């Protein structure tokens, strides 16, 4: 194996976007019959590197070798011709067309299409790699896992020798992910090379043969999966420091009540009672869809709390939202940070002003200069990249966008914070940052944390409430070991003796 020629060799690849260096001197080999995992945090340059390989971006410097001869992959066409195929995170499939049509799209051949033959070919190909998708089905009728199979079939049909998967399991159910890994193993057994981009440590350990770790655009480590003893070790290599997913939590004395929900029912909710005091974090855990969403919407003023009462900062619901005010009130950190929390097509300054404009207005006018100064300070303080207020929200990675939302909301000095899945989809470093920010905010505010991640609840909360089927089954202190152990049963709705 040592002397075998790699399928593809990237040599000293560098790429910058303006001042941001996305890839720096990257050298990487993709071998036949190997699953190589490319592991890195958000914004580490994984996607840029693979876009270069797929012919979508041209590197500033460096050479790509196909076998032993250098090639210029300036267009996707050339990359495809060179046998490099990419399974994108957002599938590039035409929804209105059938599976077979998608597979044959862009393929050379005669003027006419032979539909029977197309379907047969696709069916056979799918069978060879353990896939089950129906070639006659239209894409919009398929599940995410099946759509991904179509993407893979497209590449296999083009005789791609190197397949790149960009976070392939992000949209899959666990069983679909297992099927995918089986298919990957068949592919490498048939002599293909696979690169698989991920930040999920467990699956990298499970599926990959070799792991390359990318940090700030550079390859910092290369290990065989067999030599890695634990995901913790991998995590440490990835962020380059000891990851303490235990954040330092000092006890803060709870003060007055900032949120009180009494006998709230309706819209999947059943007689919910809860109270949050300043200086504490109440974590609501539970499987998604057990009433968390309507509860949050009622508390944040998106829907009327009927029947029941919600009291915020000592004011009745209607009065509270009528009074408004941008400072010292309620901050909502929604789960949907790209839809509800920000406007994708606006720049960071405008996004900053979305909820803080009250502080920067004089009569009907906005004091933009003042806002720009403040926002720039926040970008620095929260280490948001790129630190550029003219960047659009859609240009930011998930972690940076979330930090931007937190920066904005904390600037309002809220006394009540409702945070919904605040670290979903974030990498370890970003998660840690967000946790620390929430804990800091606790000194001034009461926090209602809605999360599906138990570790998050344990790390942050003072009290935990478990939701099941529209009810809060139980609420207890996080240091109550006996109750904490029963959380899985409570979440599953099993009776507690």
């Amino acid at each position: 194996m040592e002397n075998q020629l790699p399928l593809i060799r990237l040599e000293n690849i560098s790429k910058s976007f303006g001042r941001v260096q996305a890839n720096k001197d990257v050298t990487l080999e993709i071998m036949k019959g190997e699953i190589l995992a490319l592991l890195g945090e958000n914004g580490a340059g994984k996607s840029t590197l693979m876009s270069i390989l797929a012919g979508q971006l041209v590197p500033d410097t460096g050479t790509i070798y196909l076998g032993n001869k250098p090639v210029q992959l300036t267009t996707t066409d050339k990359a495809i011709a060179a046998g490099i195929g990419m399974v994108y995170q957002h599938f590039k499939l035409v929804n209105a067309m059938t599976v077979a049509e998608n597979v044959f799209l862009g393929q050379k051949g005669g003027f006419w299409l032979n539909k029977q033959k197309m379907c047969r070919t696709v069916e056979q190909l799918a069978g060879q790699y353990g896939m089950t998708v129906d070639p006659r089905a239209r894409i919009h009728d398929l599940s995410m896992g099946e759509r991904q199979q179509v993407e893979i079939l497209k590449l296999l049909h083009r005789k791609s020798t190197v397949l790149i998967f960009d976070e392939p399991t992000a949209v899959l159910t666990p069983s679909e992910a297992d099927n995918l890994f089986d298919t990957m193993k068949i592919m490498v057994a048939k002599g293909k090379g696979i690169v698989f981009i991920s930040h999920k440590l467990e699956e990298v350990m499970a599926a990959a043969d070799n792991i390359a770790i990318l940090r700030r655009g550079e390859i910092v480590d290369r290990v065989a999966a067999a030599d890695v003893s634990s995901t913790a070790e991998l995590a440490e290599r990835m962020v380059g420091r000891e990851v303490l997913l235990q954040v330092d939590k000092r006890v803060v004395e709870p003060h007055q009540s900032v949120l009180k929900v009494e006998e709230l029912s309706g819209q999947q909710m059943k007689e919910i009672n809860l109270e949050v005091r300043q200086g504490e974090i109440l974590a609501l855990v539970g499987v998604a869809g057990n009433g968390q969403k309507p509860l949050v919407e009622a508390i944040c003023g998106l829907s009327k709390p009927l029947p029941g009462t919600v009291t915020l900062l000592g004011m009745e619901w209607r009065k509270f939202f009528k009074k408004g005010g941008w400072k010292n009130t309620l901050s909502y950190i929604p789960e949907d940070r790209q839809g509800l929390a920000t406007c994708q097509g606006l720049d960071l300054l405008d996004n900053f002003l979305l909820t803080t404009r009250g502080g920067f207005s004089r009569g009907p006018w906005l004091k933009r200069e003042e806002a720009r100064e403040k926002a720039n300070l926040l970008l620095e303080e929260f280490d948001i990249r790129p630190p550029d207020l003219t960047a659009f929200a859609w240009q930011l990675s998930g972690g940076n966008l979330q930090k931007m939302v937190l920066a904005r909301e904390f600037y309002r000095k809220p006394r009540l914070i409702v945070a919904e899945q605040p670290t979903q989809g974030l990498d370890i470093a970003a998660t840690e940052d967000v946790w620390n920010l929430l804990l800091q905010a606790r000194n001034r505010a009461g926090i209602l944390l809605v999360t599906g991640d138990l570790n998050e609840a344990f790390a942050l909360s003072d009290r935990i409430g478990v939701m099941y089927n529209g009810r809060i089954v139980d609420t207890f202190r996080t240091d109550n070991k006996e109750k904490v152990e029963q959380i899985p049963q409570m979440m599953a709705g099993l009776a507690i003796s």
Partner: protein
Amino acid sequence: MEIAIIIPLLAAAVQSGTPILYATLGEIFTEKSGVLNLGVEGAMIIGALAGFIVSRYTGSPALGFLMAGFAGALATSIHGVVCLWFRGNQVVSGLALTILGAGLANYLGTSYVGISAPGFKTMAVPLLSSIPVLGPIFFNQDILVYISYFIPPAMYIFFTSSRFGLGLRAAGEYPAAATAAGLNVAAYRWFGIMVGGFFMGLGGAYLSLAYTHLWTTNLTGGRGWIAVALVIFAFWRPGRAVLGAYLFGGIMALQLRLQALGTQLPSSILLMLPYALTVFVLVISSWRKKTSEEPAALGVNLEPVD
């Protein structure tokens, strides 16, 4: 009504529906590639004038008809330059094309107003025209009508069963997927615009070379807009376009006949009928979920390439 009245009326419906059919098919072709071209009216009238002039000076209506197609394509190529090169707004560009086409044709055609040119004559198809009912309706027409019978099936087969048609539809549904598959989406869209414009030009020429043999100002009279609406009515299917075009042709023919018969209805109400029907048809078509039929990337410009 008696059959002696109905059959000529239906024959007239086919005849006045044919220019709309050409234009609608042209717009379907363009929209399938993902480009919304609201300049149908402009491309039609330029085609009408070009066909008329060529026929008048060469004496060959066939050459005039062909040249009308190229003139239509030339006109819509402006739309291509704006939308594909400069990524301008497709709606605005289409509207501008309509205004430009009408203005240009009326200006250049001033000296031809009221003058006639050689055109196409009715030519009964042997055998077929003697079929009862259908014969006089469909096979006692001019050759341009017969040509139009072949286009919808040809277009349908092109879309569904040819490699090129597959690429064209992909360009209209999801350009990013087409690009990822190695297709040149801009080239497909250019093709969609030019071929579409060719058919729009033919539709215009039908008016100046077969429907009338005369040139008058504002000859197309809003038929281009009806075609735009019919594309939605037809759910982007060439076959249904035939139905829609003949329906409108029928209303137009009926309206003329009613006027000739001297009904009590004011003529302005009768003249309004086709346009009122356009609104009605759009409402009805929107009722049914049209979103699944519409090319998903219709009217969306291509992302600039870095």
